């Protein structure tokens, strides 16, 4: 029988305490408050045996410390690193803490950088670096005050360690568990002091992840694993042409499939509900559907490129200007190049899915979501229920990569569930997942530069592409500039006296676009670092030396460039058809240099032999997680560079599964070295940095191996095999 997960807390790694505490905190905070420090109900909850000084911490009389995670765990290790940040300042014994997914609440769990409850842009550590530590420190201060009152001593004469308050001179101890009731009556400090980095006990240590034990034994619950009692299973198909509608449906054969319960024909999609996914899938395949393809049925990839190329003839908006670019470009010998990136699907291993139970008086939603409050809101809007009647149970995410920043999967599932009596799990086939994504936009970058004395004198970078921000975070789109689309271009690290960055918004016809791991910097780092290599070649300088000479004002990047090239054996002899390529970047506030080593055979097949990466990401919370994110991010970027391309014909996506939308596999994966630099600077972001680093490093390595410059991804093996011109 299906197990019943309605009584447990999906996404939680613990047996949860009541959600009431947190929900009340939401009401008390009233919105807009990052931290619910001054929460007047703490005493009342202490009666129930829980000390809940803020929205992130609950300590029970049994000593259990539950830490509520504001960000979604999608593999990046945030449950562990955020728990480390809270536990560090709380001085909690780390083996006593358990973590739990936060409920939807933009008020309590807003990401301070993004302004809503969202996990993305590699900013979980940066955004919560101060707030979570303050939450831990504030709770700790209340526990110390409670112990001091018990002992009738000055709180300043007490210290804490391992979930205990200790009186310095007498050595008396009180466990946090014993202080739960009294601590709730203490006044929360307005601005509790934080530890100096030198006093960190947890931060900086490669602690074991909290989420992984259940991920190796099959117990971890992802969105797709929700099994409320009586659940039915559905799969669906939207019109394969973007924007198309359902025309006519003959469901006779589908209804004859054993286990099929319902065929639902909506305006834009058809869903089949059954006793299990096999019935639903077979039922969907048995439907005879005539689509009303609408106005987009003639769109092709070629048309998309024609439009974006034409748009790039406009100067667009100026995102940044320094010096006199036009004069500088007129003075020297001018070089130009165009770089292009294709549409990409996200293809998380867990296909899009959502389980929903709609009732007249309420609604439950189970999903893995990077924007929990938006997920709840869309369900409320569709059902007409007030927000507090929609229970949104966020689950672990089987990969996010930006795909689960969108709520389209939740929206479709709720619309299906509104027509089903009882809970229904809506699971997209992989083909539906690939063909109805919101795609990484195509980009068309024109770079123009002039050289003087072996350095860059003038630089114009014109970025043309879709603005995801304008749709997703409109306040981030100002003066016709998308802050993300120009990220890592306006803050290019090289010392260039005359520099201009232009942005031209160009939306592709009909194809929806979304954030994709690496976001704007993916495009800009590829274009800039490829062009830097081309300019180095023009000057006759070594690509590393050429870059290094212009990094005097960014010593952190210069240092990692030195380290990466030294570790990679830059300049050492290589066999024929093997080359090394370098890329340097400041992205997501981290400083990273990467060397790729690749071999290209006569057929144009590329084998990536080795990736060496040096990273200065400031203070590191969990160094093992940082290394893992770089390793995985590099693979993600290499996958895109080697294989990734979504193409359009007849208004529909031509790829559908992993046979034609290929992923790098273990036999293709290179050796990867990641070298972390000790740093006392503020933490940077890391989850997307490997993805932005890999493609230009690889393209430059291919150039070093073959003399062929690839300016468009994915790599074209026919060009490398000499079958067609570059």
């Amino acid at each position, binding site marked *: 029988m299906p197990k019943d997960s309605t009584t447990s807390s999906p996404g939680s790694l613990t047996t949860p305490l009541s959600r009431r505490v947190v929900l009340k905190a939401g009401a008390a905070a009233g919105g807009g408050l990052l931290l619910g420090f001054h929460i007047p109900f703490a005493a009342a909850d202490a009666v129930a045996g829980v000390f809940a000084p803020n929205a992130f911490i609950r300590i029970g009389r049994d000593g259990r410390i539950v830490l509520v995670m504001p960000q979604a765990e999608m593999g990046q*290790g945030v449950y562990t690193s955020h728990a480390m940040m809270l536990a560090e300042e709380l001085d909690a014994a780390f083996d006593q803490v358990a973590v739990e997914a936060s409920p939807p609440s933009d008020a309590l769990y807003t990401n301070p950088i993004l302004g809503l409850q969202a996990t993305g842009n590699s900013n979980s550590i940066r955004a919560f670096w101060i707030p979570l530590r303050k939450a831990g420190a504030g709770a700790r201060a209340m526990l110390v005050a409670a112990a001091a009152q018990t002992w009738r001593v000055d709180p300043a004469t007490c210290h804490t360690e391992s979930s205990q308050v200790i009186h310095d001179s007498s050595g008396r101890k009180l466990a946090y568990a014993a202080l739960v009731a009294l601590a709730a009556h203490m006044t929360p400090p307005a601005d509790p002091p934080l530890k100096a980095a030198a006093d960190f006990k947890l931060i900086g240590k490669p602690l074991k992840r909290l989420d992984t034990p259940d991920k190796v034994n099959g117990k971890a619950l992802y969105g797709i694993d929700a099994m409320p009692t009586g659940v039915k299973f559905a799969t669906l198909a939207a019109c394969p042409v973007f924007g198309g509608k359902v025309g006519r449906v003959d469901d006779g054969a589908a209804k004859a499939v054993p286990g099929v319960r319902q065929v639902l024909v909506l305006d834009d999609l058809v869903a089949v509900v059954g006793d299990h996914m096999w019935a639903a899938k077979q039922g969907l395949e048995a439907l005879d559907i005539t689509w009303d393809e609408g106005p987009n049925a003639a769109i092709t990839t070629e048309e998309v490129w024609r439009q974006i190329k034409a748009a790039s003839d406009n100067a667009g908006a100026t995102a940044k200007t320094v010096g006199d670019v036009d004069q500088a470009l007129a003075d020297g010998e001018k070089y130009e190049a165009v770089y292009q990136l294709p549409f990409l699907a996200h293809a998380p291993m867990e296909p899009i899915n959502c389980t929903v139970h709609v009732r007249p008086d309420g609604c439950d939603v189970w999903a893995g979501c990077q924007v929990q409050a938006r997920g709840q809101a869309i369900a409320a809007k569709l059902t007409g229920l007030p927000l507090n009647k929609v229970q949104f149970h966020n689950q672990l995410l089987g990969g996010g990569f930006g795909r689960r920043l969108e709520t389209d999967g939740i929206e479709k599932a709720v619309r299906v569930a509104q027509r089903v009596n009882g809970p229904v799990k809506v699971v997209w086939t992989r083909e539906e997942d690939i063909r109805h994504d919101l795609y990484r936009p195509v980009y068309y970058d024109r770079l123009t530069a002039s050289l003087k004395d072996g350095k860059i004198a003038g630089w114009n970078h014109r970025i043309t592409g879709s603005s995801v921000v304008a749709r997703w975070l409109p306040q981030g789109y100002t003066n016709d500039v998308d802050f993300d689309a120009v990220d890592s271009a306006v803050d290019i690290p090289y010392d260039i006296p005359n520099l201009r960055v232009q942005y031209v918004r160009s939306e592709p016809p009909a194809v929806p676009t979304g954030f994709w791991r690496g976001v704007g910097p993916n495009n800009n780092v590829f274009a800039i670092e490829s062009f830097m290599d081309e300019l180095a070649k023009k000057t006759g300088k070594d690509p590393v030396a050429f870059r290094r000479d212009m990094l005097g004002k960014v010593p952190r990047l210069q240092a990692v460039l030195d380290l990466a090239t030294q570790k990679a054996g830059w300049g050492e002899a290589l066999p024929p058809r093997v080359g090394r390529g370098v890329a340097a970047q400041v992205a997501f506030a981290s400083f990273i240099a990467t060397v790729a080593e690749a071999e290209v055979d006569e057929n144009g097949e590329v084998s990536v032999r080795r990736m060496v990466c040096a990273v200065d990401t400031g203070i590191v919370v969990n160094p093992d997680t940082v290394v893992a994110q770089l390793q995985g991010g590099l693979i993600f970027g290499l996958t895109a560079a080697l294989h990734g391309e979504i193409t359009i014909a007849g208004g529909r996506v031509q790829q559908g599964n992993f046979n034609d939308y290929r992923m790098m596999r273990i036999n293709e994966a290179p050796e990867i070295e990641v070298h972390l630099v000790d740093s006392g600077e503020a933490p940077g972001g890391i989850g997307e940095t490997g993805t932005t680093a890999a493609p230009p490093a690889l393209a430059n390595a291919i150039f070093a191996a073959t003399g062929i410059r690839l300016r468009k991804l994915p790599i074209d093996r026919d060009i490398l095999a000499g079958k067609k011109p570059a």
Partner: protein
Amino acid sequence: MHIRRVYFAAEVVISAQFGRAADGDDGMITLRINGEARNIDGPGDMPLLWALRDILGLTGTKFGCGIAQCGACTVHVDGKAVRSCLLPIGSIGDRSVTTIEGVGATPGGRRVQQAWLDLEVVQCGYCQPGQIMSAAALLAATPNPDDTDIDSAMAGNICRCGTYVRIRAAIKKAAQSG
């Protein structure tokens, strides 16, 4: 030595090996899963994946592609790694099925799970049940695999998070601890 091309046709072999269930082979089917006899009320052509997940509630085995291209659904049938998304339940008979929920009860499976934790292989974790099942089957057949053995056995399992470097190291560690 760096170019290791693997043309993995294993999936094709797997589906041919078991064949399709005969039409009309519906009704209650009994399978031996993780050492227990389990009754499944479903058609014989239903892939094992959906019987495990949707009927038995064994959700550790994952759906990734449905066409044996990603390996997320890998289970053991008589100790061999098989993609459950294409394996009809009517074709299994009295062969023994082991899933991620049961593999820890075997010494080899336990070693692989421990190596996965020791080296902190896992990121999102969605593909890892399949990776672990493939690795455990590899080690059962080849106790000390070299890189080529690992490529052959593991190339059918995609990890979108890109944990391949650690998967390779963890298989070697598990082999050494055996």
